[in-house]
């Protein structure tokens, strides 16, 4: 049976006549969930989210309700909510669609969350390049204020909160929650060390802070609308709700597909939804959840045990689209931004392309990440340019091994994982790329990636 989309977050996106103004949103039941939430005690809203089993949609997949319960309430300091709309992980473009086509959904989710955690102030940190997206959110907030959904004494209650839309400046690392907080304080986006700087304890202005992804906010809205227990029936154990798969690269129909967690496989995603490979091509590999997740190679078998104890033996095409199954295959669901590579791709160039990204984006605080990312980038560029040596290939892996786990933030892993996962899988092809260039033989690859 072919898999189906299940559109909850994207229910209205792309529908003819659906617009970003509040009247349209209200006609579609908008802000009814806010009213429902405000009729509940804040803690009850938090409990619903915990019951739902929702995991954050920013990439790390941390359970949202659990995160909220970490807030330091004893300090007596104000609590802040920061919505992460930085959307900077390569291959990821899911939040963009909500921001540009249904901004009220994010605003409503933000207001519900702010109320649930009793935030004094909320921020939406949006990547600087989303210039018009920031305006759309600001307009949505202004409309919500005019309807008393936001601002002072929301819906006649004694709870008040403002939402500030804050534009970033084009830095990947400012998507990392503590880098984001520094950035929001008006500084360079240098991530902070944990401990002690767990945002829920020492976040924005050293106050307890929740940082959640923009789509997570939209998910919260639907949890409250349907109830946590009902939401927990969607998906599979350990991964509830829907995931928005944003496929890019070399498939017939790149695009965004919202699918119930665990209810389709990579094979169905790539063939049924995306139409399979381009004519005359064959798939070679995917990077499943944004460029920082480990690469998977077509033709490999994936064997192991799921957290449930069940044993599996899958081809790439058989891997179910849920967090636990994908993790059991040695990679991550991440942001759901799947990058597809086919046989027209020279893998060393693809790696050089990603290495260049991380070398450009390292904040430079930690020596292993700053130096490691640059070395990896230079070495892969050198191979692609024809000055490579065979020793370079194992050296890439050695360098990556020295970066992972040795940095303040997970940018170090983001630098290392693509290399650590790709080198063992594509070693022979990399060596062939080195040898062919050294012999001066023409390349069979026309596509330039670096």
């Amino acid at each position, binding site marked *: 049976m072919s898999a189906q989309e299940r559109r909850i977050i994207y229910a209205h996106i792309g529908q003819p006549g659906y*617009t*970003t103004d509040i009247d349209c949103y209200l006609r579609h039941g908008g802000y009814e969930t806010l009213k429902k939430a405000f009729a509940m005690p804040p803690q009850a809203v938090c409990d619903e989210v915990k019951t739902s089993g929702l995991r954050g949609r920013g990439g790390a997949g941390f359970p949202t309700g659990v995160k909220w319960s970490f807030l330091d309430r004893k300090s007596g300091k104000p609590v802040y909510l920061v919505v992460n709309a930085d*959307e*900077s*992980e*390569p*291959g*990821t*473009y899911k*939040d*963009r669609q909500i921001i*540009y086509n249904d901004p009220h959904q994010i605003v409503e989710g933000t207001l519900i969350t702010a109320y649930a955690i009793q935030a004094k*102030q909320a921020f939406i940190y949006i*990547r*600087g*390049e*989303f*210039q*018009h997206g920031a305006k759309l959110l600001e307009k949505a907030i202004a409309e919500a204020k005019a309807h008393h959904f936001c601002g002072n004494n929301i819906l006649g209650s004694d709870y008040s909160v*403002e939402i*500030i839309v*804050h*534009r*970033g*400046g*084009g*830095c*990947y690392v400012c998507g990392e929650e503590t880098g984001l907080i520094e950035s*929001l*304080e*008006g*500084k*360079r*986006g240098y991530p902070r060390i944990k401990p002690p700087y767990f945002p829920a304890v020492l976040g924005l*202005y050293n106050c307890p802070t929740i940082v959640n992804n923009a789509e997570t906010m939209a998910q919260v809205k639907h949890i409250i609308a349907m109830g946590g227990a009902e939401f927990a029936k969607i998906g599979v154990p350990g991964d509830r709700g829907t995931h928005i798969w*944003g*496929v*890019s*690269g*070399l498939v017939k129909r*790149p*695009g965004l597909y919202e699918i119930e967690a665990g209810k389709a496989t990579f094979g169905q995603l790539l063939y049924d939804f995306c139409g399979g490979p381009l004519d005359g091509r064959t798939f070679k590999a995917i*990077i499943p959840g944004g*460029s920082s997740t480990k690469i998977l190679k077509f033709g490999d078998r994936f064997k192991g045990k799921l957290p449930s104890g069940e044993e599996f033996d899958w081809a790439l095409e058989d891997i179910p689209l849920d967090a636990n199954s994908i993790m059991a295959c040695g990679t991550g669901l991440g942001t759901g*931004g799947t*990058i*597809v*590579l086919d046989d027209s*791709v020279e893998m060393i160039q*693809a790696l050089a*392309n*990603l290495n*260049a*990204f991380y070398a450009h*984006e390292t*904040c430079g605080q930690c020596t292993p990440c700053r130096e490691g990312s640059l070395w990896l980038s230079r070495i892969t560029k050198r191979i692609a340019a024809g000055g490579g040596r065979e020793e370079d290939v194992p050296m890439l892996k050695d360098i990556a091994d020295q970066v992972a786990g040795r940095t303040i933030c997970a940018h170090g892993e983001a630098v290392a994982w693509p290399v650590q996962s790709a080198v063992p899988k594509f070693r022979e092809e990399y060596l062939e790329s080195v040898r062919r260039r050294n012999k001066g033989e023409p390349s069979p690859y026309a*596509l*330039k*990636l*670096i």
Partner: protein
Amino acid sequence: MTSKLKPETLAKADEIIALYPERRSATLPLLHLAQEDHGWICHEIIEWVAEKVGTTPMEVLGVATFYPMFHRQPIGKRHIRVCRTLSCALRGAYHTMEALEKEFGIQRGETAADGSVSLEFVECIASCGTGPVVHVDHELHEEITPERVKELADNIRATLSDPEYGKKEFVPGTAAWKG
């Protein structure tokens, strides 16, 4: 105070600062605001922002140089940014860039001698499913394969003498809306 910025910009700056619990948080918004008015971040603007948000020019300079969106020197009238990250590259972004370089007679990273355009490679701008994508100022152009470069370049050149440029209505689904 700075003479580099319009009175409206200065007034807007005060409004922005008032939004934040701590005024230093207004650093990035003020840099964006100043750049939208003046085109780039000169030293006088750095000093102005520092005074406004209550920090030192050195701190603001540190911020302005950390974030790639801020220009420390004047750029072309039109700023063309081509995404080069993997999803776009797989769809031909490097070939798109080569075609743009030919069209405008400049290399990536350069500004045309007449100051008309600046051409730059940037990293992923979160439109990976419609690559290669090209940002022209605040417009997002999708699926700009090398074959479509000529058409885009002609459009960019036509805007150079268009007094209405940048003042158009935002129509859903257009490059301006998505920018």
